[in-house]
């Protein structure tokens, strides 16, 4: 095999986990991007004549494939538009968390000394707070809204990356090729960038996929308690909160939102597991 990197990618596509997670998330991304074309109704349109209508599958102008909620809004359309919020949070919060946590982990693991002591103690103290409680407090302080949710996720979850990346960096730093680079007279930052970052990256990538799934859950939790975007705008967590109140008359509101949430998080986790399997032999 002359060129193993495309080889690794090609091989990854034969892994059912990577494939299943990837397809699931691809569908979700399509739903989010083409929401206005795919959704049969405006997600904010209230039809007070059709409150809590049951799902019905006849094809007509007034059909609600997944039923309506207590204000007569179409559940399917709200689920489709809700994926925009979920995926925005997943990607933006996921990447920002990954960048912040990885940078801190690299700095702590590579430079050691007082910097490591400060960062590691911060991680210890940080992760002793219950994350959901901390996120609620943070959003309450920052004010509600999508970007506060993103900020809260980054502020809470950077420790997950920091810990793992720091440990891997410590391990890498002791290997002979780092010594060889020191002997050759490479600057510390060049050593960090060329010798250590490439070996930490696959790990960070796997963590990132898992983190995206987590971000979706945290956003749903914050929507559920009404701390995310306004309750009018469609979000899965908000739909779960509304659906809970009418669960005896109209369980479809709750069930629909829970299933898409489940599928999304499952998609991210399965993809993460698959990537871990595929990237491990490279790490070793």
């Amino acid at each position: 095999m002359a060129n193993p990197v495309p080889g690794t990618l090609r091989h990854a596509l034969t892994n059912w986990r990577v494939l299943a997670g990837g397809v699931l998330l691809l569908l979700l991304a399509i739903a989010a991007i083409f929401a206005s074309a795919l959704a049969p109704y405006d997600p904010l349109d209230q039809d007070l004549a059709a409150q809590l209508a049951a799902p019905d599958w006849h094809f007509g102008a007034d059909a609600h494939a997944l039923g309506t909620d207590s204000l007569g809004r179409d559940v399917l359309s709200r689920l489709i538009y809700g994926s925009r919020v979920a995926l925005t949070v997943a990607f933006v919060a996921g990447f920002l968390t990954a960048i912040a946590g990885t940078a801190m982990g690299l700095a702590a693991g590579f430079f050691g000394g007082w910097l490591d002591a400060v960062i590691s103690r911060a991680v210890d103290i940080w992760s002793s707070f219950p994350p959901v409680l901390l996120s609620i407090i943070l959003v309450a302080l920052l004010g509600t809204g999508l970007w506060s949710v993103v900020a809260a996720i980054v502020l809470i979850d950077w420790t997950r990356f920091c810990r793992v990346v720091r440990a891997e960096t410590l391990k890498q730093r002791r290997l002979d090729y780092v010594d060889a680079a020191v002997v050759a007279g490479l600057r510390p930052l060049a050593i960090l960038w060329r010798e250590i970052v490439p070996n930490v990256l696959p790990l960070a990538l796997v963590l990132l996929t898992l983190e995206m799934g987590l971000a979706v859950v945290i956003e749903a939790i914050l929507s559920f308690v009404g701390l995310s975007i306004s309750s009018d705008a469609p979000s899965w967590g908000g739909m779960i909160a509304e659906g809970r109140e009418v669960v005896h008359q109209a369980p479809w509101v709750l069930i629909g939102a829970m299933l898409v949430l489940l599928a999304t998080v499952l998609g991210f986790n399965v993809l993460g597991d698959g990537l871990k399997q595929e990237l491990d032999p490279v790490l070793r």
Partner: protein
Amino acid sequence: MSEAALTIKNLSAGIARGPMLLHGVSLSVAAGEVHGLVGMSGAGKSMVGRCVLGILPAKVAITGGSIRFAGQELVGMAERQRRRIGAGMALIPQDPLSALNPSRRIVSQMTDVMRLRLGISPTEAAARALALLHEVHIRDPQSVLRRYPHELSGGMRQRVLIATAFACEPKLIVADEPTTALDVTVQKQILRLIRDLQRSHGTALLFVTHDLGVVAKICNSVTVLNAGRIVEQAPVAEIFGQPRHPYTRALFAATPRYDQPGGAVG
């Protein structure tokens, strides 16, 4: 004897607030000479090499003595200045498995040093890497350059590392048990290769090993270390002819002899 490439005087090193690891080690390696550093595990032989190269473990520090290399004192030298010594020294490591970065191609790992130290362009550096791989007798060097370390055998990797060590024409190479991780047939080839290159390039070599058989094949002079102290220091013929110190004799007795049936081990 010609002028020394490396002179170590009274070198002491120890763990911070802990035990001493080296007690007043002195040795010198003449230009173009191979100096063996032998002793059992934990004798401090690798530590001497690491002091010279400036890659001591985090808690270990040099506590006294002097290391002179190319007319400069290395003990107490600032890190920034130290980095400039880079081209003058190189390391052939013990374990070829962990000495190459698994996620980078051979060519980029080999050319890093050349581009930094010789200031040549990537293409020139790649051409030089190719020539070096020829010199260490790697078949199909063009394709090896494009490979990742896990695609090469242990012997091949060690050849790549040897080629890299000679890349910038260093005055001194520290070889830290370069054959220990290889199997016996490959060991012989690698030893011959190191010896040949060392001769043709006229490099001084500090050869750290526990294997007296290897010392006999490759070294001009030997320092025997035990528990961080020098027990004997002599030209190789002398030490093999009549080892003076009981520890040296014990080391000889511990070397398996394959030419005598029932030759004792230990």
